């Protein structure tokens, strides 16, 4: 009986931890979208996230971090947002590669097969953002693209 209680408690805590991590990641991406809009336009029009793939955005964000004097956390959040948009739009040329997870600084192996895997499965595989957040960011990006910001 005692063992069952321990297992149940561990499962409950694990579930809460996963939920919390997912919510934190979601917040990071949302914060990244805000920082992207706020900081890029300090000097120039915001470039489309689809112009570059995930790896290129990592390098370019380092460049922009130095130029705009962004903190490491700010740069990581913007990169997470750019990578999320790319992921949602299937804008990574390679089909299977190690993509750095900018929100944690760790590498995650993500199998990207955008033509075969549905958007929802991709999101679940990453566990980085909710569908609601994705939709709101998608609308934001679509709006900015239409308005040529």
């Amino acid at each position: 009986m005692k063992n069952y209680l321990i297992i149940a408690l561990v499962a409950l805590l694990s579930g809460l931890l996963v939920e919390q991590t997912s919510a934190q990641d979601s917040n990071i991406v949302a914060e990244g979208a805000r920082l992207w809009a706020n900081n890029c336009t300090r000097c120039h029009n915001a470039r489309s996230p689809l112009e570059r793939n995930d790896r290129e955005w990592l390098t370019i964000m380092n460049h922009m971090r130095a130029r705009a004097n962004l903190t490491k956390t700010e740069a990581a959040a913007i990169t997470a947002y750019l990578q999320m948009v790319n992921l949602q739009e299937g804008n990574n040329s390679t089909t299977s590669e190690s993509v750095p997870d900018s929100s944690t600084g760790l590498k995650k192996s993500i199998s990207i097969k955008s033509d075969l895997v549905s958007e929802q499965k991709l999101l679940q595989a990453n566990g980085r953002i909710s569908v609601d957040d994705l939709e709101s960011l998608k609308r934001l990006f679509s709006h900015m693209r239409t308005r040529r910001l």
Partner: protein
Amino acid sequence: MIKESNSRIAAVFIAALLGVPSLASAQSLNGPLSNVVLSGYGSATFIAVPDSDFRNDFTASVSPVILYSMGDDLLFETELEFGLSGELTTTSLEYAQIDYLGFERLQFVAGKFLLPFGTFSERLHPTWINKLPTMPLVYGHAHGGVAEESLLPILSDAGLMARYKAPVGEKWAVDITGWISQGPQLQEHDEEAESEGDPHAHKGGGSSRQISASLSEAEIEIPLVGFGIGFSDNNSNKMLGARIGLVHGPSFEIYFSAFHAMYDPGEYLDLTGFNISIDYRKARFDVRAEVTVLNQELELEDGFDTLSRTGYYIQVARRYGAFEPVVRWSHLLEGKVKGDVIRAERQQIAVGLNYWIEPSVPVKLAYQVGLDGENLILLQWAFGF
């Protein structure tokens, strides 16, 4: 001997600075994180003088930027510039720097970098960002538009730089940058090159845009001063500079910048610069303004004096969909030495209309009125890639 000693100390310091992050990032140096990105910008410009002959020219420029990321914390970045100036194709190394980004709020930069003196020179001069085909009178640049006789070039120099950002409350941040670099150098006219048609030629290397002063209006000859001309300093003195700014999200930024250096081999002639830069953006309005003061100490036959000159510009733009009208007023106040006007006052108003094909591809049509000189019609197609 002193110069050699300083060079050794600088070399050891740079090696230490670069060595520490290299060890920290060694794991990712050869891993899948390594990456090279080609970026940059360029332009094609048509310039016409609406006088009786309607003189006109086409010019073009391209500035490739190469980024090499070594793990999360190290970045090498460089920008080359290729442009047309008179009968020549000009090339220059705008920056070649290594950035260490391992700290949360602190950054270190080593190499040749754009000096954070004001904001236009460091961040706003690329042709796809600059909202007009020409530079404000304060700045001169031979590429990507029209070279103007100006107060300062786009400043880049070799040395070390540290940057720090401190959030103040939820919406404000303090942006602090300090640097030490080779500093400006005294230049000499290259009469032979000038006679061959290059009006910007000067001994000691460097491109035309790096010369901050040229012909004098009075008989006193003002020494030419170049920035980032070469990697061998003409004296052991180094330029010290700093910029402190207050940033409020995307809407407001104000920066105070200053530098000091000795520019002659004997190290007794000062060059100091001060700048206030303000950027304001709201409701699709974009307002930018800068004031720059440059004090250049001179050695005259009967002693020393200082040529002090002030320049400023204000620029307002407003987006209407893909269209963006722009107006800019630039003003260089006259410079005096011993009561004589050495540099004449200059004013310029530029009015333009931009059409943004893409967020990084504007077509810019502008009419520039020189209140003391010729007017220009400019059409520029710029692109960032």
